[in-house]
């Protein structure tokens, strides 16, 4: 029974990771930019949530749309103001740019919130949900379910809407898309905004699950990028698979081998990349080999 318990816990955890990693993979798919600042976005949103909850005692989950919009705007601005100018210099430079953004945000958050752990503790923080023998902590359950639902909505939107089609067209062939009236700059800014918005939603979900402080952004960079590499860059289904592997392996390792949990995950990444350098769901493009 413990195994089912741990598995359910891992899947819920994976659901939150999946939403966050999808943001990274979406930005990569459309713009070819590795957003290493996603962790900083996340911590920013979580600390903002904490601040509002601390000041007004608002139910934190109500802040989800607010944080999503706020982070969308921030992502949009960062793309328009910085990424767009640096993008022609290639992927290495955009990674460094986003690292600069991450450090700057960490520095600002440090100055504003200090280097202390902050926890959001709504009434359900310590309660749990029981089905038969299965006991699931409430915060994890809420976060996992919301994470997966938001991801599902986003995925459906990207699959079914005109904007989603435009994004995919622009991702595959920016010049061709431009010929049929899709502006790469606009779709890119939109994609960057959506990617950042996932961190906005994720930040609220994290805030009710874990204590947060600015330097935790590094843990998130590592986890999210690991997931994206594992799943294959640019693939949302890949990000979901990678997230589930991470969530479940963390849950199992936490139960049985606590100190090895992250190492196990990195080991898995190295092993998979040894055999599939393009990741699980990644495709090898012609440029890779030709």
């Amino acid at each position, binding site marked *: 029974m413990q195994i089912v318990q741990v598995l359910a816990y891992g899947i819920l955890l994976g659901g939150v990771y999946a939403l966050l990693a999808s943001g990274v993979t979406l930005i*990569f798919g459309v713009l*070819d930019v*590795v957003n290493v600042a996603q962790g900083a976005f996340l911590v920013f949103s979580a600390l903002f949530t904490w601040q509002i909850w601390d000041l007004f005692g608002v139910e934190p989950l109500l802040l989800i749309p607010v944080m999503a919009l706020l982070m969308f705007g921030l992502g949009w601005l960062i793309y328009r103001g*910085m990424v767009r*100018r*640096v993008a022609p*210099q*290639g*992927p*290495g*430079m955009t*990674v*460094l*740019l986003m*690292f*600069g*953004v*991450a*450090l*700057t*945000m*960490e*520095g*600002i958050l*440090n*100055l504003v919130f200090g*280097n202390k752990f902050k926890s959001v503790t709504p009434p359900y923080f310590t309660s749990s949900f029981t089905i038969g023998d299965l006991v699931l902590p409430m915060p994890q359950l809420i976060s996992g379910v919301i994470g997966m639902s938001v991801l599902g909505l986003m995925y459906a939107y990207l699959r079914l809407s005109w904007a989603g089609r435009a994004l995919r067209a622009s991702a595959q062939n920016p010049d061709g898309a431009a010929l049929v009236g899709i502006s790469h700059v606009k779709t890119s800014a939109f994609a960057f905004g959506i990617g950042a918005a996932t961190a906005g939603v994720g930040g609220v979900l994290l805030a009710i699950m874990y204590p947060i402080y600015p330097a935790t952004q*590094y843990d998130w*960079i*590592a986890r999210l*990028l*690991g997931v*994206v*590499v594992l799943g294959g*860059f640019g693939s949302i289904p890949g990000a979901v698979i990678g997230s589930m592997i991470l969530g479940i392996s963390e849950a199992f390792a936490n139960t049985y081998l606590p*100190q*090895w949990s*992250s*190492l196990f995950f*990195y*080991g898995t*990444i*190295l092993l998979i*990349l*040894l055999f599939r*350098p*393009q*990741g699980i769901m990644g495709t090898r493009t012609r440029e*890779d*080999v*030709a």
Partner: protein
Amino acid sequence: MTSMIRRPQLFVPVILLVILLVYPLAASDTKYQQSVLILCFLFAIMASGWNLISGLAGYVSLGHSVYLGIGMYTGAILGKAWGVDPMYLAPLGAAMAAIVAIGIGAIVLRTRSHAFVIITIAVLLSFQLLAANLKQLTGGSEGIIVQAPSWAAEFGNLPYYYIFLAILVLTVTLSAFVMSSRLGAGLVAIRNDEGKAGSIGINTTVYKVTAYALSAIPFGAAGAVYGQYLSFVNPLGAFAILTSVYLVLAALIGGRGTLWGPVIGGFVVAIANEMATNASGGISARVLIMGIVLILTVMFLPAGLLPTLSAVAARRRSRGAAVKFIDQTAIADSSSEVDTSVIAARSQHRSGSGDAILEVRDLVKTFGGVNAVDGVSLTVQRGSITGLIGPNGSGKTTLFNCMTGTFSPTSGRVLLDGRDITGEKVWTRAHDGLGRTFQITRLFKSMTVLDNLVAPLDRTSAGQMVAGRYSGEEVERAREVLTFMGLQEFEKQNTAALSFGQQKLVELAQVLMLRPSIILLDEPASGINPTLIDKLAAVIRKLNEAGTTVLIVEHNIPLVLGLCDTVNVLAGGQILVSGTPQEIRNDPRVIEAYLGPDHMLEVPNA
């Protein structure tokens, strides 16, 4: 002495080195300055080391401080066990870093650009976790207290100062050596275009892993000393991602890919870091300031200080210099004066013409559900000029890429000189005498024509890697090949400045440097002007007379039919027909394949 003054690139560093050597002895009470300079040296060492893999080969590592940590732990653990000062174990730290780098490099260098950046971060964090968890060895997250140095206390940090300075000098020497060697040239070629580098015989795996291991050596040596300098080693300090970001920032500010850029950048970053800490009195503001510096550098000084300055100087120097006009019709006219032995195949099979040099058996290549090549068998006779034509989408380029090793076929075999080469790497095929050109030229754009020509390698060996870039008979032969192609005027031109047609000829010249027994030309005539096409045909004929077999994929049917002995027509991934140009010209199936069954205009009855 006067000769030194005329060479500022040697003169200036020597003067600066002397100043740094004398400074702590001559000036009094330099304790603080020493500690700042030690950090400058450390960052310069790391940035220069990083530059070998990330600056030269273009593989941006964001986790390179892992090798500093390995050096720190190696020094601390062995120093404790043997009762030695860890700093004397710097050579062991370097060796350990190199060994680990070979193992890790062999895995992580399989990935490219984005994935590589990220995987290097993952490696760094893995080591952090390893160090925290292997408690018996590393003391867990508390780490290891390193004993005080065995020298008298009145020396203070002075010994560290000189050791770090010595490591810096050795690191710069190492990178100067790599940059002037063929290894360095190969790495720059890899940064420009890795696939192309492989196709001209550069064993990219060996080159990259070698550069990666060399780049780890300065880190390992400096780490062993640094651990003792700090007097403790713990996982978070030894394997800090911020150290990696700072050292990348240093290389970026100074100028990636240059010899002195990373050194300058190391000093700039270390001093800026010190000032930020002093100004704010805390780590929070330092992170903020370094973040802003990183953003500004990437946005406004992406090439780095040194390249930006030298670009300005070069522009000033070249002001007023006219671009030389070269008469295209003169190209290739001088070819008759050149001894064709400079291009003749290296391995001469005495069996004469008639046998198969390249053979493809039942080759299938599928992409998803599409059979791009669907069971092709084909032989290229030794000494022939063989053509491969077919409508768009018939599988020509895919077949071509399977022969050259760019793709591995789904099934079927490729034989060169009767030997199965299906599983061989691209560069091994190049060593074995199979050369190729590309439909869209893939020259190394940051290099001159001559540099492009001396880049190809006919084997992989350690001796060749350490040989100087322009040593050996290659340069002389490169000039002769250029003359043969009628390109001697272009020797010092940057290839980016050439017209597309000229680039195609340079690319052919580049492949000829390998003296292949068979050369595969991918649409050599596409996109070039008609005069050059005639020249090209003349060059191909001459090549063939010199004993080189040629396989051409081409859309220019008159050129193919005029040149080739045998022509194979591909349609729908299968060989439709093979025969002499005459047979092909008159075959109705060929016309149908190109134009479809309804190509006849229906003339309405009047």
